């Protein structure tokens, strides 16, 4: 995370900069199974034993029943489009650490297993996207996968 202040010297008002970089070490813990699943080309989700709802990202407990979710279900490779949006301005890219323009729309997909997830869409023209369209996951080559969201290219 970096923080910067603009460097300006006005007549009265002085501002100065504090750029700093902070490295975070996060333990994925239970989510490791999900990340490893992505590396293998599988989309896994946790399932609630009470309501049967599958959630991505995986949750420790079902938010509605507060029951520990220990069952993991493979969600398949296909799903239906729920919604899509395309961003027309540069946004932070967590892989490169810079602002980038995003050509591919971000979509919400409901997978075969019932879980909904975010992803990118190959079709760059949002006008052509319709709710309910059938989509299939296209993965990065296995050696490039890191257990990240963009292991599914689109």
């Amino acid at each position: 995370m970096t923080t910067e202040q603009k460097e300006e010297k006005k007549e009265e008002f002085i501002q100065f900069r504090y750029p700093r970089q902070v490295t975070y070490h996060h333990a994925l813990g239970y989510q490791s199974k999900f990340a490893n699943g992505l590396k293998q080309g599988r989309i896994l989700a946790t399932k609630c034993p009470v309501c049967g709802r599958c959630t991505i990202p995986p949750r420790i407990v079902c938010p509605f029943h507060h029951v520990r979710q220990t069952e993991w279900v493979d969600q398949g490779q296909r799903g239906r489009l729920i919604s899509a949006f395309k961003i027309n301005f540069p946004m932070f890219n967590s892989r490169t650490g810079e602002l980038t323009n995003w050509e591919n729309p971000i979509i919400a997909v409901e997978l075969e297993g019932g879980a909904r997830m975010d992803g990118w869409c190959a079709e760059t023209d949002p006008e052509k996207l319709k709710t309910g369209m059938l989509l299939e996951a296209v993965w990065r080559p296995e050696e490039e996968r890191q257990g990240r969201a963009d292991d599914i290219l689109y």
Partner: protein
Amino acid sequence: MARRVGIVAVAQTKFEERKSTLHTGELMYDVTRDVMGQTGLEFKEGGIDSTVAASYDLLSGPAGAYMFLGYVVGAYQREDERVLEDGSTAVYYGAMQILSDHCDTVLLVAYTKESAVDKNMYEWVGMDQIYQRRVGLDFVSAAGLQAMRYTTKYGITPEQCAKVVVKSRKNAGNNPFAMCCDNLTVDDVLRSAMLCDPIRVQEAKPVPVDGACAIILASEEKAKKITDKPVWITGIGTCYDHHELGWRDLADCDALTTAAQRAYKMAKITNPLKELDLAEVSEQYSYQELLWSEGLGFCSKGEGGKLIDSGKTEMGGELPTNPSGGMLSGIPVCVAGMQRVVECVLQLRGEAGARQVSGAKKAVAHGVDGPAGQLHCVITLEN
């Protein structure tokens, strides 16, 4: 206090240097489920009314870290608030929610993974951005300045400070949740490298430490129904001190004295040394146990060194201080204040095992936040 607030369940994780196989949410889950299991309360009508958490986003990384973990502590469609201070303040606020009649039961959770980021980095950001940060002051150097001033003004010796560490580590040997329970001697402590003059490495709290703890508070009527061993919160007080280190005499902790007086007044305690059976204070550095003891009224100003020499704060003494081993044995920041309350509760319920202070009836727990003890929170309890 007109309406009493009872503590009906407590839980804590074992404190470890790095819990790298566990996600932060799993830490929260473990302690939450523990206290819920003890009381049979669930997240629904008639169960837990609200949650008050204590944590820092900057420690966890993303901007809304707690927001995305709230579901673990039952935040879905319910009252859920997060105090951006040490865990003792969450206890303070949770008690307020019950005293205001707004809630009947409150779940309190404090969690921290110090292994996620460099503590000094974010504590540096905790100093005001115009004057103190530019000088490179962070909480460690602030503590160093305070230690230097305090020991110089009142003639506290390095041996007296070192005795605090020896006592803490020895006490930790009786505590299965503690991280460090090595048998240090005064010499061991004084031979360790200098961290920030006059504080030596062995006189500072171990870093990093990961862990979490949870408490369930309930109104008097409900507490009596849930458990036959409720522990009552009899007094609470907080107080802010100056931020700029030069604006106060660092050798004194007036904010703590005021906070303690606020709590003692509610609890009708006039002689803490005699009336209390144990104390759990938040001491990140050895000198702090001595200084906080003065603020809490265990001895007069400047007599902290004499207090530890007298043996009154040892196990078996008149007022055992930190029978759990305290922060010096390894407790993460933010969790510390709430965990002190957890320890007091275990003591007052007679469930403290090998570290039990026999016949404990009244205790005081203390939490602190900010550089050189800027915000103090004092909570008195009795069974």
